[in-house]
């Protein structure tokens, strides 16, 4: 990182998770991975219409941040959002039903993977517009500030949104109004099919936060504990009235922009190097090294997740498609 701008660290209150909490982090990341592997299979089998965008490789960011949020802390996701939804507590069968376009889904199967809303768990939605969720999270933070109950909001967006004007507008307002929120950039190196360095000016992405006087930090997005530590400090500041934080979590999208994208524009050596940083394998090793889990507990946990996901898929596949009567409902509140 080469920057002459001042950097600040958000990680003031780092604490290691308990064994139980650590296993929950692992469980949630693995659940997302398994869920998405099944989405890929279903898509390849022609079960899913349209497009789906998977987050394999990026699970540590969603889980690290959302593990610290309550149901009344709001998040706004992006187009690569299954991980955020599940990390925030979404019901897997309902999420899968939405992805499959079934009536038991979060939007009656009318909205699809790109438009999943989960009010009960504080999720303002995935969105098909790059950067589109950023102001929604800020609006939730404005509401939270008015309520004064120490709630916070988180906006997840990719490096593609670093070049949306909307981000700059919202960063500015979040700073001047000291909104209790986190801007979490999942920098996976590619905006759709284009490398970040080909389309992004400036010394470092965190300069976008720093230029508004917002505490900003670069985080190893492949390390769930690093993400969690950074988010912990940032959330404490937000809840204490200290305003927003801008986190750039460096991560990698193991797959393409969407299922079906062969992603041959990636550098092979680079992709291989990132694979070695797989956040789930890495955290699994850490759990064992820290004597929080054994290889067999991890294997058992994965088996349980396989079954859980299979059951969710069965439930979703058994659900009906929305009927013609569903076409016009909910147009107006």
């Amino acid at each position, binding site marked *: 990182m080469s920057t002459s701008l001042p950097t600040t660290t958000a990680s003031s209150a780092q604490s290691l998770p308990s064994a139980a909490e650590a296993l929950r982090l692992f469980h949630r990341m693995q659940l997302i991975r398994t869920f998405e592997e099944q989405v890929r299979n279903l898509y390849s089998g022609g079960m899913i219409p349209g497009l789906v965008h998977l987050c394999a490789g990026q699970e540590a960011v969603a889980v690290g941040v959302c593990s610290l949020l309550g149901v009344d802390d709001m998040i706004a996701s992006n187009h690569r959002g299954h991980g955020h939804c599940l990390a925030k507590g979404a019901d897997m069968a309902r999420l899968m039903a939405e992805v499959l376009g079934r009536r038991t889904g979060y*939007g009656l199967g009318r909205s699809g993977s790109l438009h999943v*809303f989960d009010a009960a768990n504080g999720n303002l939605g995935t969105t098909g517009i790059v950067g*589109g969720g950023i102001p929604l999270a800020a*609006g939730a933070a404005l*509401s939270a500030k008015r309520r004064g109950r120490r709630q916070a909001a988180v906006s997840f967006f990719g490096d593609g949104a670093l070049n949306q004007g909307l981000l700059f*507008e919202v960063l*500015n307002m979040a700073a001047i109004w000291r909104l209790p929120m986190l801007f979490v950039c999942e920098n996976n190196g590619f905006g759709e099919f284009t490398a970040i360095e080909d389309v992004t000016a400036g010394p470092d992405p965190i300069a976008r936060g720093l230029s508004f006087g917002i505490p900003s930090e670069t985080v190893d997005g492949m390390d769930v504990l690093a993400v969690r530590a950074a988010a912990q400090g940032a959330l404490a500041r937000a809840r204490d009235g200290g305003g927003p934080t801008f986190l750039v979590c460096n991560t990698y999208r193991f797959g393409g922009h969407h299922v079906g994208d062969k992603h041959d524009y990636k550098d092979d050596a680079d992709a291989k190097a990132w694979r070695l940083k797989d956040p789930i394998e890495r955290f699994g090793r850490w759990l064992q090294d820290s004597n929080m889990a054994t290889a067999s507990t991890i294997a058992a946990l994965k088996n349980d997740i396989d079954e859980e996901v299979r059951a969710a898929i069965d439930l979703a596949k058994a659900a009906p498609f929305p009927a013609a009567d569903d076409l016009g409902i909910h147009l*107006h509140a």
Partner: protein
Amino acid sequence: MPSPRTATYRAAVLEALFSEMRLDDSVILMGEDIGAAGGVFKQTEGLFAQFGSERVIDTPISEAGAFGIAVGAAMTGQRPVFEVMFGDFITLIMDQLVNQAAKINYMSAGQFSVPLVLRTAVGIGGNLGPQHSQSLHAWLVHIPGLKVVMPSTPADAKGLMAAAIRDDGPVIFFEDRMLYNLRDAVPDGDYVVPIGSAEIKRTGRDVTIIAIGRMVHMALAAAELLAKDEISAEVIDPRSLVPLDVDTLVASVKKTSRAIVVDGGYRQYGVTGEIASTVAEHAFDWLDAPVIRIGGADVPIPFSKSLEPLVLPDAQQLARDAAALVRGRR
């Protein structure tokens, strides 16, 4: 009998804002220069002093981001009234309005609603030129999920603002800035005009003039001219463009058998076309003549004093067109 209380259009909207903000703490205002400055048209004067900066929020000149924040606030318990200073600037918020606000209730299957009012000043006048004079309501009536109102009188402005704030979805409130000083009767106290209800502003039997926003007053002036010519014109103000009170419009056209639709926005692909075809579909067998559309000239609105007045139709021309229609010369 005492004469009814009067107020200006500007003051009538303000009455609704004061009253709704007193009734409901979740009503907040957001916009440029609306706080301490009281609004560029003095349309929010006094609200900041009464309710403070937490509820009357001056935004930076960042329409897209600020409006998006209002949408997020609306999803999480607030009822924002968001002001876009000039109607021309709605172009800056279109993504957040069209792709988010209008669709969130539907996409979320009712889990989230967006109880938000977007108010914006439109209309030609004062030589403000091509980027500060447009009436772009035709852009928004096209989008499912939005309600769109355009009151023409102080009473309707008060009643529709109250209705818009109480509505649980996004409502667009177009106010013609050339009407701000118009003074007329305004009911005291709590007053709500239901969204989706047209009003017959003048009854007649020979021709129906459906006029929108400021054009209502032009149509009433034309009706006066026509009366001198022994032609009886009925003037109807839809007041709401979405939902449109089709029944009231069609009933009138079935009575008069002739219809003219007048709007201050661009004529091409405008709301006059939609209303004219709706009326024709429902009252074809009753019509004695084609439905006539009259709109603003399809040009960027010129600044020059010699040209600006040529953009909008005037009462004399409308009266001539109506007379020709009634006498079978169209």
